[in-house]
């Protein structure tokens, strides 16, 4: 009776403890959805059953039915992309592995059957590591830390992917928009070339004059081909980020233009107010630091003392006597720290803790710097795009208008008019590039606020510096 009670208690404790330590993938997804609401819109879900997969496919169809907005693109990636599903599945693996840590090692049942003359001895030993049991609370906490870390990693990976999707979407839309203008430049050059051809035919132009116009067309054609490929490349990049299959890819339609610039840019204060503590990378470093601290105690202890306790119950059958007797007792295995006093292990653990602590510091310091850089990139991109929108494009438009007046007054000819039109178009293309830079910087900054910095600084430096198309036709 007493024995039964005891075994029940052990079993109950084991179940309780195991349940307690378990953090499921669903919880992790819920966490990520909450934590990265801005990114996931709460829509991150791992489909495990055919029904779930069908639902995902259906949602993807709905999203693909209309030109895909940036937010829709994110939703589509979250529901549709196998890569995202893989991320979640992988996270499940990690969480499961973390949960493993919290489980008590199974007790070892040893069965012996020994015969000595007429004696048959059946030995049963149920043993388990005492240290594991003693350290169970610590192990639980480590398990939680690992699971937390896995969740953070999942969130990070999702943020990363979403940022990629956003940026790919911006590039794809911008490329498509630029292509439209490259086509216009080409049309203009084509018109010039055709006019020049006719001018030569009727004797108003020399070969050289015609060739000058023709060469613009030739160049414009090359540029158009490049622009076409750039559009395809950007679109395919988006398709990959969305994880579309061929049928879905064929259906993908994008809006004709990038969204307008926001009326006012995000405030530096607002961005800086995002406590660095909130950032994913900081949290991750913190989790690693905690883990290092917790593991230190446990690893050290388990190296130092390894105590295994066992309950033994042997039954001896004496065939000669026809008697049966039971022996009971317990065993203790103790590892003697004679050769390994644990100093190397201790050093390693200390070093690990130190490294983790410093990594944490470095991450905290880096985080605010990255935020500042990200904001600068964002703000510069905003200002440049706004400058294009409010200054350069209207100026070019005014120049184009004036040129029409000058053409009307026969102050300039049609070739000059077309050359100016090309310059205007080039300015619009630059404006689109600037707008693209802004939306990319916007996505990068959003990621940076979350704590998955994306490199935009290098891209910024080269943006918006292109002049208007050189070599007009006059």
């Amino acid at each position, binding site marked *: 009776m007493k024995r039964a009670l005891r075994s029940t208690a052990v079993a109950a404790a084991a179940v309780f403890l195991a349940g307690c330590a378990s953090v499921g993938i669903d919880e992790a997804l819920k966490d990520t959805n909450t934590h990265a609401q801005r990114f996931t819109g709460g829509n991150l879900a791992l489909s495990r059953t055919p029904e779930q997969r069908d639902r995902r496919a259906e949602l993807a169809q709905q999203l693909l039915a209309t030109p895909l907005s940036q937010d829709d693109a994110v939703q589509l990636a979250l529901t549709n992309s196998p890569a995202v599903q893989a991320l979640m599945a992988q996270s499940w693996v990690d969480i499961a592995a973390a949960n493993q840590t919290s489980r008590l090692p199974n007790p070892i049942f040893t069965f012996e059957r020994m015969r000595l003359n007429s004696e048959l001895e059946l030995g049963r030993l149920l043993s388990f590591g005492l240290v594991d049991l003693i350290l169970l609370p610590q192990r639980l906490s480590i398990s939680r830390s690992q699971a937390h870390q896995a969740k953070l990693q999942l969130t990070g990976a999702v943020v990363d992917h979403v940022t990629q999707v956003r940026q790919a979407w911006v590039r794809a839309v911008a490329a498509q928009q630029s292509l439209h203008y490259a086509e216009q430049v080409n*049309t203009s050059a084509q018109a010039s070339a055709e006019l020049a051809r*006719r*001018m030569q035919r009727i*004797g108003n132009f020399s070969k050289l004059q015609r060739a000058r116009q023709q060469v613009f067309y030739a160049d414009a054609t090359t540029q158009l081909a490049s622009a076409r490929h750039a559009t395809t490349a950007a679109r395919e990049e988006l398709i990959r980020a969305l994880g579309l299959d061929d049928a879905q890819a064929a259906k993908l339609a994008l809006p004709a233009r990038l969204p307008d610039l926001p009326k006012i840019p995000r405030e530096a204060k607002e961005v800086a107010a995002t406590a660095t503590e909130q950032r994913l990378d900081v949290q991750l470093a913190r989790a690693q630091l905690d883990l290092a601290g917790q593991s230190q105690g446990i690893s050290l202890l388990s190296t130092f003392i390894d105590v295994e306790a066992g309950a033994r119950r042997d039954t001896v059958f004496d065939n000669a006597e026809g008697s049966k007797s039971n022996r009971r007792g317990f065993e203790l295995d103790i590892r003697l720290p004679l050769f390994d006093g644990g100093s190397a292990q201790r050093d390693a653990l200390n070093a690990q803790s130190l490294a983790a602590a410093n990594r944490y510091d470095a991450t905290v310091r880096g985080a605010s710097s990255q935020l500042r850089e990200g904001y600068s990139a964002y703000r510069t991109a905003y200002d440049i795009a706004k400058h294009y929108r409010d200054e350069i494009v209207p100026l070019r438009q005014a120049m184009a208008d004036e040129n029409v007046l000058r053409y009307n*007054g*026969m*102050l300039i*000819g*049609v070739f000059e008019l*077309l050359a100016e039109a090309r310059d205007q178009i080039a300015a619009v293309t630059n404006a689109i590039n600037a707008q693209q830079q802004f939306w990319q910087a916007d996505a990068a900054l959003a990621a940076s606020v979350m704590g998955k910095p994306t490199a935009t600084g290098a891209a910024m430096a080269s943006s918006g510096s292109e002049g208007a198309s050189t070599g007009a036709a006059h």
Partner: protein
Amino acid sequence: MTNRRNFLSGAGALTGAVAAAAVSKVAMAALPEPVLQTKPDTMAPLVPPSGRPYNPVVTLNGWTLPWRMNNGVKEFHLVAEPVVREMAPGFKANLWGYNGQSPGPTIEVVEGDRVRIFVTNKLPEHTSVHWHGQRLPSGMDGVAGLTQPAIRPGKTFVYEFVARRPGTFMYHPHADEMTQMAMGMMGFWVTHPKAEHPLIEKVDRDFVFLLNAYDVEPGSATPKIMTMADFNIWSWNSRIFPGIDSLNVRLNDKVRIRIGNLTMTNHPIHLHGHEFLVTGTDGGPTPKSSRHYEVTTDVAVGQMRQIDFLADEEGDWAFHCHKSHHTMNAMGHDVPTMIGLDHKDVARQISSLVPDYMVMGERGMADMAEMEMPVPDNTARMMTGEGPFGSVEMGGMFSVVKVRRDQKAGDYANPGWFKHPPGTVAYEFDGAIPEPARGRHSGAAAMPAQNMPAKNIEVQIRKPVADHGKH
């Protein structure tokens, strides 16, 4: 034009003229009151209120400077200053001139007059006045640095000499001359003979104007002063057609026109319907033996020509520079010739890029005058002017001599369009047109050609086709 009749209701009282307020009272006591002109209209002749009588001139789109007699000396006051000159309706230029206008007022004196001219400089830089063509003491010749110190801004200089020989003269700065002439600093000067002169006939109407040229970027207002040859505004007295007033005369009037050239090129001035004699040059009246009838006389750079003719043919007679570019307003000199180019289909393509694009020039440039499309602000159309039969398609140095039977003597008002007697206007022939016989022979050459091109080049003259009417 009726204003001109009131022009001299009292001595020196000018319609629309105002006294300059910026000259101090002390200075005013010694100086003749400067008279400013605010309008670019042709003002009525200034009948001399004092001094020796003479037959006054009419300055085309200009006026004559009033004077005061001071102990037998004719005193004038020129104020050199920046002005805004309306060069044609709707087109104003920032120029430098005298007494409110560019060119400055005409100065009329009589042979033997002692003339004292006060010159006040209200320009931002120094200036001087050179009395082009006059016999005078060297120190009065107005060449800054050479014969006098320059007149600093705000300063007043006095020139004094006797107008020794009758004739046609000009005045203009001789300090930073290139800038100041490019900005419109100039004026006319006429010295009338004091008695009957064997070589200077009396005339009923005596018109004067200066030829001047500017380079004003279309859409702007200030001339580019560095321009050497590629001027785009060819003007008479800083006016361009259709802004130049007509020269209105009575049938059988003896008419004199005096022209001075202060541009940087020559101008063959051509009159329709009449022959004229060149009766005077920079040097004075020409000997009768040298005169021959002409319809065009070339006025070279810096020269003056005085032409006389009898206006004995009624009608509206074109009067213009015969350099055809000079009868155009601002135009592009690098615009390719589009004649014969059919590009309606390409035009659609262009219109998709330049929405307001219109096909022009396929048939010639007359499209431009016909279409009246918007042009840059403050820009006179290349060619314009609506006559009784349609667009005159002219600009620049172009005007009309209007000879009318019923024009009153001394009346300079515009009589309107000529009413042609029936049967005297060219008309459309509506009979059958036989195909003309065309010679195919290339004709003899002076000498045999060498190094001819490998094959014959056929020069195609494209003629307008019928369906181009609707652009």
